[in-house]
């Protein structure tokens, strides 16, 4: 077992870190970007494309870089470190991942090539107002055959749904959940975008006899593809959270060192330093579990349980660290001008995307009787 990065992976980390540190040198820069549409930086997205980051996990014949889960983890963690608003996990890992797993060779080449070049940003339209964290579609239905299908129903909230150049939509088909491609100018498609609390964007997306093309084999149940791809995105979100938690903790410790109250630095008060120590404990335990989940992915097995374990640990750690970061800062932590609140917002958003801690704990409960001990080597 080896948790270390190799030298090429370290080089990727340093390059992405350098790029993002320039793009988001302060939380004010990020705020300026998230205030304007589309909520992230076109220039930064283009620079990420030029660096090869947007095609990282895709096969070379599909226009990607042929890299693996470890490289995805590295990028996600750097995104989280500055809470860059660019939709790496949403567009590349999740939407792109579905295309890579389910698409025909033509679909893969066309969509993933353009995604890697930064000219096409897809979004996964999956969550429905009444679906909570279920992976099966229930409210959007598909009918048709061959390449000619129509969709009806509503998806909301769809992260990045208004700006997306292509929607990948899950819908009810006979015998399961299918995946469909919908173009932005499709008939009967309505998209109403709005901001989310973490500076991101979501949309109400309506389908009224909207023409759609099946992703991959027409009429096929894609439940397994959705589950496996969502697991990859859950793990990537875990890494994004690690980056965010690490910055939130560092910002907090710097504050405790410099901020004076009653004539002395805050770190003079043991009650405060002990709480910071507990934040560190939460971070390290989450880092162990999330990194392990990436190792499980690398190993090629079923990573859905590992993803649930990582998401549960991150949910608890993210809440603990986010809440304490604000509390230990005092009033300044509540202000939009200061960074820690934004980190807490982003951690909260990630917690509630693709299943929060309680949801994943429930999933783990359902398999509780299947093992005597949890062995980290599956």
């Amino acid at each position, binding site marked *: *077992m*080896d*948790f*270390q*990065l*190799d030298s090429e*992976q370290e080089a990727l980390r340093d390059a992405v870190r350098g790029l993002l540190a320039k793009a988001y040198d302060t939380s004010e820069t990020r705020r300026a970007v998230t205030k304007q549409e589309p909520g992230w930086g076109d220039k930064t997205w283009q620079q990420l494309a030029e660096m090869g980051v947007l095609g990282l996990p895709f096969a070379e014949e599909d226009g990607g870089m042929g890299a693996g889960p*470890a490289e995805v983890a590295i990028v996600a963690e750097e995104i989280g470190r500055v809470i860059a608003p660019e939709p790496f996990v949403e567009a590349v890992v999740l939407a792109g991942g579905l295309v890579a797993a389910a698409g025909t060779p033509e679909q893969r080449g066309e969509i993933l090539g353009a995604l890697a070049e930064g000219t096409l940003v897809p979004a996964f339209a999956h969550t429905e107002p009444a679906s909570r964290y279920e992976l099966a579609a229930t409210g959007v239905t598909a009918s048709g055959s061959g390449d000619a299908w129509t969709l009806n129903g509503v998806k909301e909230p769809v992260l990045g749904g208004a700006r997306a150049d292509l929607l990948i939509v899950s819908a009810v088909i006979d015998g399961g959940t299918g995946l469909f491609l919908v173009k932005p100018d499709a008939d009967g498609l309505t998209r109403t975008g709005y901001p989310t609390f973490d500076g991101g964007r979501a949309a109400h997306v309506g389908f009224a006899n909207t023409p759609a093309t099946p992703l991959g084999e027409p009429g096929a149940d894609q439940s397994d593809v959705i589950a496996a791809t969502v697991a990859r995105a859950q793990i990537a979100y875990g890494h994004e959270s690690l980056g965010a938690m690490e910055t939130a*903790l560092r910002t907090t*410790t710097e504050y*405790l*060192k410099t901020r004076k109250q009653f004539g002395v*630095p805050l*770190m*003079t*008060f*043991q009650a405060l*330093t*002990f709480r*910071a*120590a*507990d934040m*560190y*404990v939460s971070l*390290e*335990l*989450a*880092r*162990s*579990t999330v*990194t*392990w989940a*990436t*190792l*499980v992915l*690398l*190993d090629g097995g079923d990573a859905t349980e590992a993803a649930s*374990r990582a998401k*549960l*640990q991150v949910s608890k750690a993210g809440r603990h660290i986010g809440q304490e970061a604000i509390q230990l800062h005092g009033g300044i932590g509540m202000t939009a001008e200061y960074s820690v609140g934004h980190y807490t917002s982003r951690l909260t958003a990630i917690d509630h995307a693709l299943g929060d801690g309680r949801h994943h*704990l*429930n999933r*783990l*409960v359902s398999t*509780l*009787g299947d093992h*005597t*001990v*949890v062995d*980290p*080597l599956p």
Partner: protein
Amino acid sequence: MKLQLSDEDAAFREEMHTFFTTQIPQDVRDTVAARRELSKEQIVASVQAMNAAGIAVPNWPVEWGGKDWTPLQRHIWHEEMQLANVPPPLPFNASMVGPVIAAFGSQELKERFLPKTANLDIWWSQGFSEPDAGSDLASLRTTAVRDGDDYLVNGQKTWTTLGQYGDWIFTLVRTDPSVKKQAGISFLLIDMSSPGVTVRPIELIDGGHEVNEVWFENVRVPAENLVGEENKGWDYAKFLLGNERVGVAPVGSTKRTLSQAKEFARTAGPGGTSLLEDPLVAAQIADLENEILALELTALRVVANSADGKPHPASSVLKLRGTELQQAVTELFVDLAGPLALASGAGDGSDVPDLARVATPNYLNFRKASIYGGSNEVQRQIIAGTILGLRG
């Protein structure tokens, strides 16, 4: 990055598993599984079986019976031992006094003590803590005054774990009261059968006799029993307390105890039904499993990446979180036992399952875990000060 163990480490794991499940006396393993106290004879038998196979003191120099194992192999050795209900070698011998004598003792002391220490022919006790020197160890007051070829020792030690079995005790004693408190301490080995040594039991809240007070009244100790140099004892104590990073979090035994608790829960509901159907119980167990996994993976990160000899920063998490989870599982057992937990004093005729009867004494006993070995508050202080740079 890689998930699986190397072929070599996987084979090593298998070898350890086979050894611990077949070569350690079954009654020892049954006693551990029953969460009952081991007798001195059982602990000695277990250690001697390991020592005969050459794996009782792998952390020692090879010359004195150690193994040139990687930190990961030592971790595997320790985990497999615990998962097989085998008690780890007596820490006072294997992790504390042995490595100190091997590193700082004279050749004569090494030859005299190390083989017997490895084989538990000598049972060592630890004489560090005093009534006014707990976490603040350097405040100790027991004195050793040079008198001809001997030291004359006077004072009191306390919290001497299993001191009732002790043949010898390694002590920190004040040999120079005139210098700053860390500078005047020496590391002295004392035969507990010497005239003037008195061991008095301390009864604890679990009803057991695990710790003792040890009194020294004009005890004559030959000067040759001094380890290393006079007044350098503090350095040796720091070496002793800092050199054991493997096994500081009891992952294997906590994992095993939780699986026992889960098994117990299957029939602990009304009318023999499964408490795993109780959503609150199931959620708590699943959550603990995940927390223990996180701890185990952290321990693996530490040992897998500590090849260069520098301690991994995350190692500070292990004692703190390891003991919290150890305590959480003993607490869970009491809750699972419910009203049966009250039958702790029941004898052989009882209809209450043994695991329910030992649940509360165990829970009470393990409150010690967050106090000994540097209290968890001391661990938080270390994390805040050393890792986060928060120095008030």
